[in-house]
């Protein structure tokens, strides 16, 4: 059922044919290019393989951002189905996450490209990548439930929510690695679960080391907290969707 919802979502949002994979790549590649220019040429904060370091943040953030945008309109998009038949509405945020994970998988090529550009050879630490990807997926899924509800409750705030998520990127160690920050900024950025996710990608792909435990556990704990609160709320609200969507 999730597969059917995700396939229909992919066709609705991204169209058909080979060109759609180009659409998936445009955003992360363009964002990586812009931020690389900003960091390397405008701010002159080169660091270690800055393009790869930025890609390690942009690629996972792409999944979180795209899932949020998708989930914000996910209930309304399926309004005609919701008003017509009974099915497990809890699958809607899950389908949003699966849909965007397919686009996310395409954007992983950016990481491989940047590793090749900077001559960073993969190490045994790459074996951690599936777990790191799984943590990213869990985090995106946890964000999808509140996004679906907020998109239904306050559709007029969708643009603001997207801006808020984008702000969360800048309040994390996205453009510069956590190791390049100091003092209060370092502490503050560490509190953002996105920082943990970004750093886990850097550990595995850039530094060639195992991710620190907090880099995996902190976002998972954050995701479990969000899921614990919002899946219950979503469950209570889903029987009322048909009253609200019209």
């Amino acid at each position, binding site marked *: 059922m999730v597969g059917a919802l995700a396939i229909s979502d992919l*066709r609705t949002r991204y169209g058909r044919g080979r060109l759609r994979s180009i659409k998936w790549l445009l955003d992360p590649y363009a964002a990586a290019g812009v931020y690389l220019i900003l960091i390397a040429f405008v701010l002159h904060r080169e660091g270690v393989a800055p393009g790869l370091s930025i890609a390690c943040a942009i690629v996972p953030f792409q999944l979180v951002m795209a899932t949020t945008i998708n989930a914000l309109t996910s209930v309304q998009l399926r309004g005609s189905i*919701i008003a017509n*038949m009974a099915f497990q509405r809890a699958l809607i945020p899950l389908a949003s996450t699966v849909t965007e994970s397919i686009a996310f998988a395409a954007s992983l090529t950016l990481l491989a490209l940047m590793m090749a550009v900077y001559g960073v050879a993969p190490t045994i630490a790459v074996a951690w990548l599936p777990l790191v990807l799984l943590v990213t997926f869990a985090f995106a899924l946890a964000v999808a439930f509140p996004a679906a*509800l907020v998109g239904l*409750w306050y559709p007029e705030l969708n643009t603001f929510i997207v801006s808020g998520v984008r702000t969360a990127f800048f309040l994390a160690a996205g453009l510069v690695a956590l190791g390049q920050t100091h003092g209060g900024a370092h502490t503050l950025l560490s509190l953002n679960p996105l920082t943990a996710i970004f750093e886990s990608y850097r550990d595995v792909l850039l530094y060639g080391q195992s991710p620190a435990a907090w880099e995996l556990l902190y976002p998972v704990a954050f995701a479990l907290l969000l899921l614990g609160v919002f899946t219950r709320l979503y469950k*209570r609200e889903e029987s*009322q969707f048909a009253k609200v969507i019209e």
Partner: protein
Amino acid sequence: MSGFVGAQGLGVLFRFDRQRRVVTPAMARLRRAGPTVWGLRGVDFAVGPGEGVALVGPSGSGKTSLLRLIAGVLLPDEGRIEVSGRVGSLLAVQAGLMPRLTGRENAMLLGVLAGMSPPQTRASLEAIKDRSGLGDAFERAVSSYSMGMRARLGFAVADCHGADVLLLDEVHEALDHEFRETVAERAQAIRGRGGIVVAAGHDHPVLEGMCERAIHLENGAVAEDGPFERVLEGYLRSVG
């Protein structure tokens, strides 16, 4: 195959905010609460195997809410409803269709959501195409369909999954005369196998072709329940 629908003290509550927008209970807590209105309240009835029941009444009387409760689209805020048998529903002209998908893709999605496995659904697609009478349009995006074509596809999908309880809400009124006959025939066939048809609308001759019993709803309550002709007469008298 047999269906049953029973309701006891059924109620649906609509909450509004100060701007008269319908809100969910959680939204009502977040926004400044407005009035509450019972869309249905104290509704009791039972529909047994082989019955066809028409819901008549003015707009806003609760017909759509009642059909949505039977379909499981809404849960009652009060009372209880029991439905046995597979439900096939066509509760809006949009018929659960997503405009950017083709007829075939919509049929596939709705089949799986209705509880069929993907292989089962795939196997039924040609039958749905034939029953809908859409021909080549089945492969085109639903956004290019007329309301009648959407209703045809929606009905073919709802009917093709072996519905024991068929629910129709005014949708048949968007259909052309040829397909209305098809709908009436299919409704009779479902009832003949012990299934149930519950249809709402304002085209009373069409309803009479499918149902021998009617429930007149007025302000969210059952005003009269009985033989179609008698109930319709009472309803028409009440609206002058």
